[in-house]
């Protein structure tokens, strides 16, 4: 090979190296491949779906699947190592933490947004002005004999009350029953139970005497079909709005919602990129979907937790978080 040709070859090779080195420097141009599997809460699903959809524009080759098995059902799969991320509308339970230890599957708890769990009735319902927590308890407690609206409060019509709510796999169910009935999972069973919140919206919107509960986002997306009820937690009736949820005035049904990530899943570049993208876009997308963004400091804390792979839950005493929780201040035990 003569010198001229050699020099041309060398230049070409160097050029190729330079170009590829340059393109790999800009991380956003890096085309990631792989899968991210998410499952869990139907309450958090709208956020995860939105994040997955937006992530597609940034990293089109990463395949994200989002399922809706309910917080409990999702945790079962998460702790068996079948999913990378679990959407959760309640903190992880003690029982699930034990399973995590037994299976050797760690978890990183990341708060994502605030939700004001909403109690809704049919649009044509004109007699309910507000409901106290005691009245909610009367309606929903196990063995409750409330059959008509007149059983709830004097002066209300004797119309039959028909109940709609999430099923037992739902974190919203756990949270509501614990907050209203005092024990997670304690509820009267004779209502239309469906993990699919959309079905609940459909049912309530067509049933005059109906009453149901689910995440605020599902009310926000269907304001034309439903009426939200003000809840009196002891300080007067409060309607859930962005303001009242943020300020903590809508109590006791305001709650943070989470995603839980497996630390070993974070070893995969695409999962890492996705989780970072999730936390970055959470304020904007949570608002769009109808939830309330957390304070910036909380998101920064969450990012840090991902970086350091900090595991464990802040709710190890088993109590459900109330709106007054400012998670940034909570101490996270190191596992």
């Amino acid at each position, binding site marked *: 090979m003569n010198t001229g040709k050699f020099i041309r070859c060398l230049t070409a090779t160097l050029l190729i190296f330079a170009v590829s080195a340059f393109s790999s420097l800009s991380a956003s141009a890096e085309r990631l491949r792989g*899968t991210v599997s998410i499952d869990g809460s139907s309450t958090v699903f709208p956020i995860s779906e*939105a994040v997955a959809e937006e992530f597609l524009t940034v990293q089109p080759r990463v395949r994200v699947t989002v399922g809706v098995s309910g917080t409990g059902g999702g945790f079962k799969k998460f702790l068996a190592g079948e999913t990378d991320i679990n959407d959760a509308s309640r903190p992880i339970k003690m029982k699930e933490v034990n399973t995590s230890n037994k299976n050797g599957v760690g978890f990183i708890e990341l708060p994502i947004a605030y939700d004001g769990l909403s109690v809704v009735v049919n649009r044509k319902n004109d007699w309910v002005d507000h409901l106290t927590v005691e009245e909610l308890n009367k309606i929903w407690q196990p063995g409750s004999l409330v059959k008509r609206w007149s059983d709830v409060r004097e002066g209300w019509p004797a119309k039959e009350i028909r109940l709609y709510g999430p099923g037992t796999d739902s974190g919203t169910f756990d949270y509501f029953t614990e907050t209203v009935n005092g024990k997670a999972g304690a509820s009267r069973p004779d209502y239309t139970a469906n993990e699919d919140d959309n079905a609940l919206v459909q049912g309530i*919107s067509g049933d005059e005497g109906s009453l149901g509960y689910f995440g605020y986002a599902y009310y926000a997306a269907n304001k034309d079909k439903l009426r939200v009820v003000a809840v009196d937690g002891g300080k007067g009736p409060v309607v859930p709005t962005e303001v009242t949820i943020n300020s903590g005035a809508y109590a006791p049904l305001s709650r943070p919602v989470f995603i839980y990530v497996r630390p070993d899943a974070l070893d995969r570049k695409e999962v890492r990129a996705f989780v970072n993208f999730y936390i970055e876009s959470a304020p904007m997308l949570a608002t769009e979907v109808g939830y309330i963004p957390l304070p910036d400091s909380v998101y920064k804390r969450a990012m840090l937790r991902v970086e350091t792979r900090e595991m464990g839950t802040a709710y190890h005493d088993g109590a459900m978080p109330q709106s007054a929780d400012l998670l940034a201040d909570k101490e996270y035990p190191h596992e």
Partner: protein
Amino acid sequence: MKSSLARANDNIQKRHRKAGLFRLLCASVTWLGAALLATLLIQVTLDGIKWLDLQFLTSFPSRFPYKAGVKSALVGTLWLITMIAFISIPIGVATALYLEELSSKGKVGKIIEVNIANLAGVPSIVYGIIGLAIFVRGLGFERSLLSGALTMSLLILPVIIIASREAIKTVPMSIRHAAYALGATKLQTAWAHVLPASFPGILTGVILALSRAIGETAPLIMIGALTYVAFLPEGPMDAFTALPIQIFNWVSRPQQEFHELAAGGIIVLLAVLLTMNATAIFIRQKTEKKLQ
């Protein structure tokens, strides 16, 4: 007092009037059924047609109705058809061939025949549960195209076998006898003579069975296909979604726009089915002439 002849005439007229009314009743009921079908199809078309455009066919599902589309669902369905065809056609046709041509038609044959007829009547959701237990969990295929295709293949296998047997039965015995007379064995006759002759009938039956498989939702839900999927599968082990699943997902949402999107998805699904059925009928007509 009327004469007996007059009374007889009255009686005849009354009976004929009754017959006329009866005929009218049957006719109107039948046309009512046709009208019902027309209403359903017109309703679906009116609801969905405004969403039906190229963007709809080439977009992934989205939380925004105006952005949403059936791309992943359509491609998933096409993947499913192909895989199901590859799995179920060889087994189904081989079984039919064996039962008709090669087996001794004794007790064992009768048992298999009854067995297949029963399998054809098992609800599709039971196949879904079996698919969940065997393919998703037992063999560990998870929520993949492979699990879906295997489950659906089990579902339509009896249909293919029955249809193929019918097609094989219609091949005249003269063809077989001619082959035997020339010294061919049963297998050679079956493979080289009966099979080609019955091929159009088998093809028709296979296409109809496949079109049934495409429309089934319940088994796919059972194996876990009900997730948000915004990518195209690249291999048999990938997660997927399919047209009926996407339609079900959209119908379940309370917003009106999603119902209309579901209607659009239904139009696409019906279009696929119509194409397959038309192909089957076309093949049947073309080759019926040939055999004549």
